[in-house]
């Protein structure tokens, strides 16, 4: 049975179908429509005829009619990967499917390097090799954390491909796009409110961008909006506000959230309007974004409310009078009236007011004191924990290095310093992320030098990669100390894994000495030396690999 469309002429007097029918029935039951040679069995004669017919039909096959071909994938003008980088990506993706089994403990874990590879490749603005798109989509399907970078690298062709295979639907669902510049001309150069003739088919980039915005998949729209915002915040906002009224609530929320990265003061009127949105989540997000704009009217209203609650006494102490009610104005500005169970509603409201108050105001109100001095002021009654926690959230939201620094305090102090202050409100990792990268690394380095590695995992996670000095040195020293103390390396596997991915690859040579198997000390765990040697081999190997990856992805000069 062939899949071709035509049935060529059958040579013998019997058709192929007749021969098949005869074969099904059996020559013993009915004489087949063939003429045996003298002395030949009818079964053999049937096989002769079938052989002739088979070869003739196969030799005479004709092409089938072509079905419509898929619409061509949109062009992707980004540069192709250098060939070594392409081979590397193929290897990283293959390792994912091989699942790393059977490799020695001292070998680098390639799957863990994939996120970094993708980020770096996107940083250089490469496009994915077409042939690797299926493997890339499969990887992104299996690991949600890879999706934004994988789909960015995949670009328009990945989405094109995903539309043809139900297994890659996730790529079309959205929440996955990331701000990169799409191809030249895909971003509207002017706000789409500008009256231009509808359906200028592919003649100018402007209507292309607008058409994509109006008709595109959600993922494409998010990605387009982010890119447009990045390029020109006002133009991006105009794009969004043009269709805002017709968007679904969950889409409005996602679009609004995507404004966060490139938030600017001119967004205020739009956000202020969104405070009256039908959806509660949209209202809350709009309020949050407005409070991150210190000059906004909402921030001013919040500041006014907070000022009535928190004051500096004549004796230099901070007095707190929590709000007595949560009126409709407060609620419109995003204050959530109902506290989580176990919390008093007045302290809950206070926390939200302080959190949304521009931090500069405290200096203004407290006679020009700096953040460090204000944080050091005693707080009456037992309001310190609530007040400091709210300031921490404000410092993170408003990205204030000064306040983060003051609230973090000295890294050498125990994390739960202070008599009454419970450490729970402190989230050093979040506060750290508001500090400049160098200072962040320095703070964590000092923290590790004082407290060791056991509490450092989350802190290390917010440090910029590759780790700046003295952080890298601090981590390596701490690992060295842990080894000398005789513990097993897997007690530190989390930090070790981070170090593999985050240490400066230039450290590889310096770390080489650690790969030697040390003489076993008296109190060391049995065999620990060998395991440490393997762990450090893996660390050095991974660093060398990352160095190679970096070199491979660096665009050739000129």
């Amino acid at each position, binding site marked *: 049975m062939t899949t*071709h469309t035509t049935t060529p002429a059958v040579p013998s007097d019997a058709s192929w179908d007749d021969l098949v029918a005869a074969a099904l029935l059996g020559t013993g039951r009915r004489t087949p429509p063939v003429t045996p040679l003298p002395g030949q069995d009818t079964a053999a004669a049937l096989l002769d005829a079938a052989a002739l017919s088979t070869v003739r039909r196969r030799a005479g096959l004709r092409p089938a009619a072509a079905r419509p071909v898929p619409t061509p994938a949109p062009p992707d003008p980004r540069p192709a990967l250098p060939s070594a980088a392409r081979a590397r990506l193929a*290897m990283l993706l293959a390792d994912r499917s091989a699942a790393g089994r059977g490799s020695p403990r001292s070998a680098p874990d390639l799957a863990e390097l994939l996120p970094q590879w993708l980020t770096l490749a996107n940083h250089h603005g490469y496009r994915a090799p077409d042939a690797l798109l299926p493997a890339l989509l499969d990887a992104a399907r299996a690991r949600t954390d890879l999706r934004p970078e994988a789909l960015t690298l995949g670009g328009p062709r990945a989405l094109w491909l995903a539309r043809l295979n139900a297994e890659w639907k996730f790529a079309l669902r959205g929440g996955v796009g990331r701000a990169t510049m799409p191809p030249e001309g895909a971003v509207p150069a002017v706000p789409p409110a500008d009256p231009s003739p509808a359906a200028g088919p592919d003649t100018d980039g402007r209507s292309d961008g607008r058409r994509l915005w109006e008709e595109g998949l959600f993922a494409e729209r998010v990605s387009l909006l982010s890119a447009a915002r990045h390029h020109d915040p006002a133009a991006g906002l105009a794009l969004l506000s043009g269709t805002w009224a017709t968007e679904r609530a969950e889409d409005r929320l996602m679009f609004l959230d995507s404004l966060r990265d490139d938030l600017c003061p001119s967004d205020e009127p739009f956000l202020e309007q969104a405070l009256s949105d039908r959806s509660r989540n949209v209202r809350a997000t709009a309020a949050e974004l407005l409070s991150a704009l210190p000059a906004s009217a909402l921030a001013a209203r919040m500041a006014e409310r907070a000022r009535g609650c928190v004051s500096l006494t004549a004796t230099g102490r901070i007095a707190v009078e929590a709000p007595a009610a949560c009126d409709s104005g407060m609620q419109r500005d995003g204050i959530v009236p109902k506290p989580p169970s176990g919390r008093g509603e007045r302290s809950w409201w206070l926390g939200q007011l302080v959190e949304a108050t521009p931090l500069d105001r405290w200096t203004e109100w407290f006679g020009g004191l700096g953040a460090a001095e204000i944080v050091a002021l005693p707080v009456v009654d037992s309001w310190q924990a609530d007040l400091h926690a709210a300031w921490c959230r404000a410092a993170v939201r408003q990205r204030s290095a000064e306040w983060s620094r003051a609230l973090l305090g000295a890294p050498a102090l125990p994390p739960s310093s202070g008599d009454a202050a419970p450490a729970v409100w402190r989230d050093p990792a979040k506060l750290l992320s508001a500090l400049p990268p160098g200072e962040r690394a320095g703070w964590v380095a000092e923290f590790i030098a004082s407290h060791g590695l056991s509490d450092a995992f989350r802190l290390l996670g917010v440090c910029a990669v590759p780790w700046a000095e003295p952080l890298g040195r601090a981590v390596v020293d701490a690992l060295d100390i842990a080894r000398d103390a005789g513990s097993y390396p897997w007690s530190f596997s989390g930090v070790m894994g981070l170090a593999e991915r985050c240490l400066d690859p230039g450290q590889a040579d310096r770390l080489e000495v650690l790969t030697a198997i040390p003489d076993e000390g008296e109190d060391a765990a049995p065999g620990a030396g060998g395991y440490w040697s393997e762990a450090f081999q893996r660390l050095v190997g991974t660093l060398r690999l990352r160095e190679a990856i970096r070199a491979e992805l660096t665009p050739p000069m000129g």
Partner: protein
Amino acid sequence: MNPQGERWTAEQVLALAPDAASRTAGGKLAAAGPWSGTGARGPGIWGVCAGSGSMPYRTVVDLGRPGYRCSCPSRKFPCKHALGLLLLWASGGGVPEGDEPPEWAEGWLSERRERAADQAAGRRDDAGSGAGGGAGAGDQRPGGSAGGTADPEAARRRAERRAQRIAAGASELERRLADLLRGGLAAIDRAEYGVWDETAARMVDAQAPGLEARVRELAAIPSSGAGWPARLLEECALAHLLNQGFLHIDQLPEELAATTRARIGVTLPVAELLACAEPVRDRWLVLGRQDSSDGRLTTRRVWLRGERTGRMALLLSFDTGDRSPEPTLPTGLLLDADLVYYPSTRPLRAALAERHPTPPKADSERTVPPGGDVAAALAVYGEALGQDPWLEGWPVVLSGVTPVPGDEGWQLADPTTGLALPVDPRCAGRTDLWQLLAIAGGRPITVFGECGHRGFAPITAWDPEPVPLTATPARGGRR
């Protein structure tokens, strides 16, 4: 650089890996870290790789007549050490040129050199005597001429005994087929696999591996889905044709007899082939490669296309575990070499006789091979079938085709002519069609594959670098 004048790219090296796991493992060994004592001289590359055991592995690769040896216990071919060493060499650093190879490497390399020289010399000698003898053409049967040391009379008797065994096997299969047709295909109990198993075992006894493979295929057809009776009749008929061919082999023209013998599974030893056939020199482009395994034996197919002659060639090699299949030629490589075709009415299978130094490829030469259209592909298959009725497919470069996915099967469509070739449904799971689709992006591309009666089986696509379309096991399940 080596005397062949090329340094392979990392991609070409990776294309040699037998599977994804080896690719990854080789990649991990592509750093200088585990290696010591590496070097390259002439066609040889060697190095010592520290592994997990106490003894480091000694790896040596011969690029001249590509092959490798490694002291590791892996049965993968090539093993990860050979891949890692080649990658290290391909990266340009880590393998110094020009040193004297260590004894263990030199021993193997020189052995291979001598063997190559022997073969070349043997061919020349024999070509001379053949020209003198003239009348011996009809006697060039297996074991008939060269081979060197063996007693020709004993060899002839051995060949005769084997021919008798095969004839007995073919007759038995004929009886089995006639019984089947007499009883009717509809009467087949689909669970009757055991009967076929027995017949297959008899074909093994008859030393007819080609017949054994056909019997195993016949056994599988009744459970292969709709349309099986017609497919079963086709395959029964072709098996019958093969049996009849062998039973009347004395009446066949020499070339058709050779084709029949090859289909039965009687192959000419390479040394004998090199001795009796005329080499074809050309610049051969490696079009693609495919490994298939039946559990015991891995068969590697490498397809070549001659630049000057336009001829296709197929190099077959087998990995039985104790013997490395050769050669290791990465897809996209262009090599200046002498090939010797196995005698056949439609010669395709060939052996690599000798490689000549190839000047480095200019960038302008890194091109996609020229291809034909859909109708031409079917025509060349049809024509080949006239000469070898058992051909399942013929290697073809198709150009200007766009892959079209579909639930009822994929197509390679030519929008300019409105004609299409269906993709062979047996490709699912073996070929990464989605990769093919991604490379095309809805536009026409060039694809190499086999064009056969079930459709076209894609093997390589160009983007414009050659991309082998082998499905990785992890993605095998994707439809």
